[in-house]
């Protein structure tokens, strides 16, 4: 019997790793890949280590191009059968995975902790329960999918690449919705954390998932790129660094693959003076010292109202002293090991550079284990937005502090980042928090809470934090096909002689017109000083349009970015403006039809009529494209709001030059975006002339800007412009590739046609809705309540 301990200390309380070791030994601590329902023979192996001790846990195989090919092949072969499973059958498979995860929850938690370094408390209470929840939720989706999306089809084989910070949870976020939607997949776990994925492979066999539906290959970035480049991969889902996200966008440019990226962040944790400060302190702990700060949505920038800064920081420092750092398997550990030596070095270097920049470092006194990769909780004071340490993602347990004076300033600082993943807002004033939530450009907002996740609520970022959502209906849509369209369209129908003579009669009556470009609500001359001639279908010059250049686009993007009136208008008012535009277009129906005819040789009446109908259509949507309330498991709600993407560049096609312009521009406008439109290069007149309609319809200045000119030059300028949030391109296949390729500048969203022609005159319901989805991004606002 041990002696009495007079001081109340916790003492050791370790979770036993034995179950994991005995499982590893079963495979002689060597693993192959999981392809076509079987484990392959281990080859080309590398070590996976326990970051808290440096001990080698097992050897896993580095996937080759051939492994990737085999995996994709088996997934492709399995797709047909899997797709034809009934929803009930698919649901049962996913349900079995959920159940098996629950049954094996403890060994999975211990394994995750051994391989990743995170505290057992987190893997046991957060990671693994969320994994099970994700499979449960999506087992449900598999069952009811045909009711919710009767016309939607799965994509085929999807490639999924996941990071090391939440190995099994990210696997669940990827695999569950992919399966529910009817896809088959190839997944690559992170190089340093492959073990739980390999254990999961065993569960797949136990759950009798048909061979080939789920394939898991281990390896490094190179292995990943074999998956990404494979021609039979219909979609890539990636979670990881912004740097790799860029690379993937580049590698997949023009390959007609769907892409969703969940990347880095530098999220703001905002504390107002009327917050419950002690609770906010706990929020900070859960935000930046959760998972050693190795969390993409970590609240790494603390913004605190100046009047309470001193008090709050004092409370925070006191609380930091209570954190336990050490053995991740100990049940009382708050902060475990950093995942790898290289990550630890990166954190150390960034903090050192922060100190050099003038930051004052605070670390509570605590013992740091001598072996393994540990870094203490760190607070950097006297930091400013102008410091690199406040802009660069550290991905470690390091927090910076910046004071603010007013809500407006808090928003400005929060948005002063290239990222846009999440924000946490602390105030007891609901008016203040709900006012702030839409103004912060992030995908997730937590009010008086932080790091809440659920399978029913979408997660994902704005800006360089990526695009696409995981979880919720919005996440499921990522794994379903966008509507496809016929490539055949006949718009070169010959006009009758009678029509031609009519046009000539019109021409005689026409006074010479000088068309201008339209920027910031003003008709203006192009900076180039040149005009380009527009030829009619009879090869005769029928007009001139300005030769817009990069400076014109600079002005246009500036005007669009500064525009606030349009996006702040009530949806009802926006609808009114759009309806009014239809009224005004209708008054000039004949004129627009005649211009169309002059350009294309086709009677433009139907196109103008369709344009009017399309304007009505999107005006109608303006106050109806509503969000959702997700049923998250808290006392509270999660509001999924459809927010405008922001500044959208729209490069219009030559087919149906007025209607395609109207369709794209009005769908972007009705959801509150501001637009820079490039009309068809060949037939620009009718679209450019629309500025007269906008001018006479009370459209706020800057909401719509129209610049004519050389399609390819203007497209490239928009594609690399950092102020453009999304670029829609309807042109050639090569042009589409260029747009995707150049979009990596600021990781803008893209919507391209890969050279396809769209049935503008006979749009399907899906196609019209698709534009609305492309024009918006979902923000999830978590609002716990209770008094």
């Amino acid at each position, binding site marked *: 019997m041990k002696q009495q301990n007079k001081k109340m200390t916790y003492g050791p*309380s370790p979770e036993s790793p034995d179950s994991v070791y005995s499982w590893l030994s079963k495979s002689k601590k060597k693993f192959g890949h999981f392809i076509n329902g079987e484990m392959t023979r281990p080859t080309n192996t590398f070590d996976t280590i326990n970051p808290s001790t440096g001990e080698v846990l097992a050897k896993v195989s580095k996937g080759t191009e051939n492994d990737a090919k085999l995996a994709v092949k088996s997934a492709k072969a399995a797709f047909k059968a899997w797709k034809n499973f009934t929803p009930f059958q698919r649901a049962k498979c996913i349900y079995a995975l959920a159940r098996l995860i629950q049954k094996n929850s403890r060994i999975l938690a211990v394994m995750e902790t051994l391989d990743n370094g995170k505290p057992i408390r987190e893997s046991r209470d957060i990671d693994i329960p969320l994994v099970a929840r994700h499979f449960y939720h999506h087992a449900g989706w598999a069952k009811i999918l045909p009711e919710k999306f009767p016309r939607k089809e799965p994509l085929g084989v999807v490639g999924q690449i996941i990071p090391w910070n939440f190995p099994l949870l990210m696997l669940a976020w990827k695999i569950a919705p992919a399966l529910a939607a009817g896809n088959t997949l190839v997944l690559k776990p992170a190089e340093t954390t492959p073990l739980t994925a390999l254990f999961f492979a065993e569960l797949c066999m136990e759950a009798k998932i048909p061979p080939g539906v789920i394939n898991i290959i281990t390896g490094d970035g190179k292995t990943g790129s074999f998956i990404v480049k494979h021609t039979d991969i219909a979609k890539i889902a990636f979670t990881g660094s912004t740097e790799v996200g860029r690379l993937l966008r580049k590698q997949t440019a023009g390959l007609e693959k769907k892409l969703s990226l969940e990347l880095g962040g530098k999220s703001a944790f905002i504390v107002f003076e009327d917050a419950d400060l002690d609770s906010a302190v706990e929020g900070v702990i859960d935000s930046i010292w959760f998972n050693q700060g190795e969390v993409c949505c970590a609240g790494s920038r603390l913004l605190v109202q100046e009047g309470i800064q001193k008090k709050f920081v004092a409370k925070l420092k006191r609380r930091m002293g209570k954190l336990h750092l050490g053995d991740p398997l100990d049940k009382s550990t708050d902060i475990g090991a950093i995942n790898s030596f290289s990550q630890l070095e990166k954190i150390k270097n960034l903090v050192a550079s922060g100190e050099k920049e003038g930051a004052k470092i605070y670390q509570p006194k605590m013992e740091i284990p001598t072996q393994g990769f540990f870094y203490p909780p760190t607070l950097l004071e006297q930091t400013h937005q102008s410091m690199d340490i406040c802009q660069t993602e550290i991905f470690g347990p390091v927090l910076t502090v910046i004071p603010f004076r007013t809500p407006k300033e808090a928003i400005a600082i929060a948005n002063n980042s290239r990222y846009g993943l999440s924000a946490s807002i602390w105030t007891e004033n609901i008016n203040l928090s709900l006012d702030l939530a839409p103004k912060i450009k992030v995908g997730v907002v937590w009010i008086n809470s932080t790091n809440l996740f659920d399978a029913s609520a979408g997660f994902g970022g704005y800006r360089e934090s990526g695009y696409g959502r995981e979880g919720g209906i919005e996440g499921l849509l990522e794994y379903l096909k966008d509507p496809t369209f016929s490539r055949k369209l006949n718009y070169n129908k010959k006009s009758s002689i009678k029509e031609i003579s009519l046009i000539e009669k019109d021409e005689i009556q026409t006074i010479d017109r000088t068309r201008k470009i339209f920027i910031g609500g003003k008709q203006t001359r192009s900076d180039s000083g040149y005009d380009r001639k527009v030829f009619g279908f009879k090869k005769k010059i029928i007009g001139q349009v300005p030769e817009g250049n990069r400076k014109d686009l600079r002005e246009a993007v500036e005007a669009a970015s500064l525009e606030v009136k349009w996006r702040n208008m009530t949806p009802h008012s926006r609808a009114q403006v759009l309806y009014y535009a239809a009224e005004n277009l209708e008054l000039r129906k004949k004129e627009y039809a005649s211009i169309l005819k002059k350009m294309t040789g086709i009677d433009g009446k139907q196109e103008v009529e369709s344009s009017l109908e399309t304007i009505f259509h999107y005006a109608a949507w303006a106050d109806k494209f509503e969000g959702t309330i997700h049923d998250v498991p808290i006392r509270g709600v999660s509001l999924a709001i459809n927010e405008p993407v922001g500044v959208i560049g729209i490069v219009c096609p030559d087919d149906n030059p007025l209607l395609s312009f109207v369709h794209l521009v009005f769908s972007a406008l009705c959801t509150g975006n501001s637009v820079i439109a490039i009309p068809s290069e060949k037939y620009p007149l009718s679209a450019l002339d629309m500025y007269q309609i906008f001018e006479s319809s009370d459209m706020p200045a800057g909401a719509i800007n129209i610049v004519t000119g050389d399609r390819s030059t203007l497209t490239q300028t928009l594609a690399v412009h950092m102020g453009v949030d999304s670029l829609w391109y309807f042109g050639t296949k090569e042009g589409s590739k260029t747009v995707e390729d150049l979009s990596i500048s600021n990781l803008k969203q893209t919507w391209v046609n890969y050279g396809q022609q769209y049935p503008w005159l006979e749009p399907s319901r899906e196609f019209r809705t698709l534009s609305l989805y492309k024009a918006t991004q979902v923000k999830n606002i978590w609002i716990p309540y209770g008094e």
Partner: protein
Amino acid sequence: MIPREPIDLDINLILSQKVNLSAVERRCDTLMKRRSVKKRHQADWLLKAIEFMDLTTLAGDDTPGRVDRICHKAKNPVRRDILNLLKIQNPISVAAVCVYPELVRTAKSALRESNIELASVATGFPTGLVPERTKISEINAAIKNGASEIDVVINRNKVLTANWRSLYNDVLTYKKACGSLHLKVIIGAGDLGTLRNVVRASWVSMLAGADFIKTSTGKEPTNATLPVSLVMLRAIRDFHDLTGIKVGFKAAGGISKAKQAINYLILMKEELEEEWLDKNLFRIGASSLLADIERQLEHYVSGAYSSGNRHPIV
């Protein structure tokens, strides 16, 4: 003990207190999963819990015989053989015995030759809805009969009607009547409706001179809970930051399992500085808790789960 001076009531300070229920609940929920005490450490913590205990009997059927019995248990809270196996040489006892004023005299006599404090409830326990002058005479009677600590209840309707000034004056009067005796103020959290009221009542009590703030009488629909306790502890911490005065905390009502006692100890340890882990600043008011702790201790020393009949009842 020299009674401390009350501090002027600042209504703005009371009204500016903020509590976010969801965040408080989350903290309580996760905290209990963030910390774990096992084996010898757990046994030592349970022994500490005994030393922090106000062994209580506050029932309509209390008789001198019952009080006598409880006092005897207070002096011998754990079977000697278990203590021997735990290698505890010095005798241990609970911090105090807590009874109705009527039974103070009996308890006083039963506790003679021990350093166990004798606490008496007062001021119209448990509701506080009796005339103010009878409240003071209750306190006086308890003191006269030998109580060394007074557990008063506040009149909850003064919280519910936001009559902070009047509540403050009540507690001032109790404090004056208690003189140098230890004053514990029971805020009756289960009757207060919101955590915001809990923090406000705590502040008013502390400003008016409470040595301890106590969660509950044990007679409200809900008694001590971790969220209520967390809010009170944070108030104690803020009050200390502001005034330098250390106010104690007593959790009472509904704490009947050893595991719960451990949770409260974790809460104290994590939310306040080490010096609050002392019977002068922390108490657990309980009765059946002691038997459960004793069973857990026997389990620790024997490796086998024990049963209730093997431990002397209180």
